[in-house]
């Protein structure tokens, strides 16, 4: 999301800058004195608009709705954590004998993330854990942020890797990609409750 936002604003700012510089060049007479003294809304432009008649207004209305759609997509992407949709519920089909329906087990998407958060928080030195699961429930993208007060990250890494293995073993989901970020914090003085 951050990279996409940066690219988006680099493109937007470049377009804005280029358009403004082009306007300044026109006004300075770089494209001739006729262009410099020409109205911003020139007569040929007005004629073209009037020739379109009602269709010009229809086009503007459609353009307006398109802008609304673009804005909605952008807003949704910004409000989602990591710019992606959280996973749906995980449906696990029981193994039947092929003749009868053996039933399903449904695990709510947020419950999956909370389960691994709880497991990660049990690691000594981990003060807080926040996990996001995105994409397919069976092969999600897993992003975790661990606030750790211990400097021994090697040990925490080893135990966090075990948490991931337990998560796969108990839920049957194998994350497609895993990103775990450590944030070093001061040790919490509040008593740990687990």
């Amino acid at each position, binding site marked *: 999301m951050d990279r996409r936002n940066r690219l988006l604003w680099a493109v937007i700012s470049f377009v804005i800058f280029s358009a403004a510089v082009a306007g300044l060049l026109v006004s300075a007479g770089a494209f001739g004195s006729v262009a410099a003294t020409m109205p911003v809304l020139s007569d040929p432009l007005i004629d073209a608009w009037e020739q379109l008649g009602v269709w010009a207004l*229809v086009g503007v209305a459609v353009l307006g709705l398109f802008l609304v759609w673009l*804005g909605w997509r952008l807003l949704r992407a*910004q409000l989602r954590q990591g710019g992606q949709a959280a996973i749906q519920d995980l449906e696990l089909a029981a193994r039947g004998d092929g003749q009868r329906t053996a039933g399903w087990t449904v695990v709510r998407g947020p419950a999956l993330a909370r389960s691994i958060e709880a497991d990660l928080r049990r690691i000594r030195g981990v003060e807080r854990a926040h996990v996001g699961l995105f994409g397919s429930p069976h092969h999600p993208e897993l992003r975790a942020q661990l606030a750790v007060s211990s400097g021994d990250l090697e040990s925490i890494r080893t135990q966090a890797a075990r948490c991931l293995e337990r998560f796969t073993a108990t839920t049957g989901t194998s994350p497609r990609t895993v990103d775990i970020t*450590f944030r070093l914090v001061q040790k919490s003085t509040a008593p740990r409750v687990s």
Partner: protein
Amino acid sequence: MRALNRLLSLLLAMALISGGLLVAAEAAAALVGQPPLLVPAAQWAADLRGRSFANQDMQLVLSGVAVVGLMLFVAEVWPWPKRLVALGQDEHGFWWLHRRSAEKQVRRIINRATIATKTRVRLQPRQAAWNLQIDATAASEARGDIEQRARALLAQLGGPQTTSVTVRIHPRRDGKRVTDGPP
């Protein structure tokens, strides 16, 4: 930059939604022969028909827009320090370290365990190596201790063996030597 971009994107999204709705509503009103709802488009068009690019107001507006556009573009392409430092990849996934939290931790340890005060720490990840720069107010004899503490912490964090640690010692402004240990 990350927060600014997020804020700008949110503002742009809301501007697109409200502006798009307004444009569609204005076009619909014009289609059914109603007067403009909020935007006096005919008046604006008439104004722009009578205004050329050589007009001073136009030049002022264009100059302002160009400056803002250039500032934003430079800010976007500027190589800001990375938010995360890569700790490596294994069969489980990618492991990252929050850069500023690591800098704070180094500073805390140096201030607590050595005679240094007013410590500033900058961690720069470069390809396979890290570059740690420490500015501290202390006696020059403390340099070795500061470097040793920093290297020990980086080793604990899983930093690469080839990390270069630069310690710059600054004397106190009042000329007194910093030789006392931490309280």
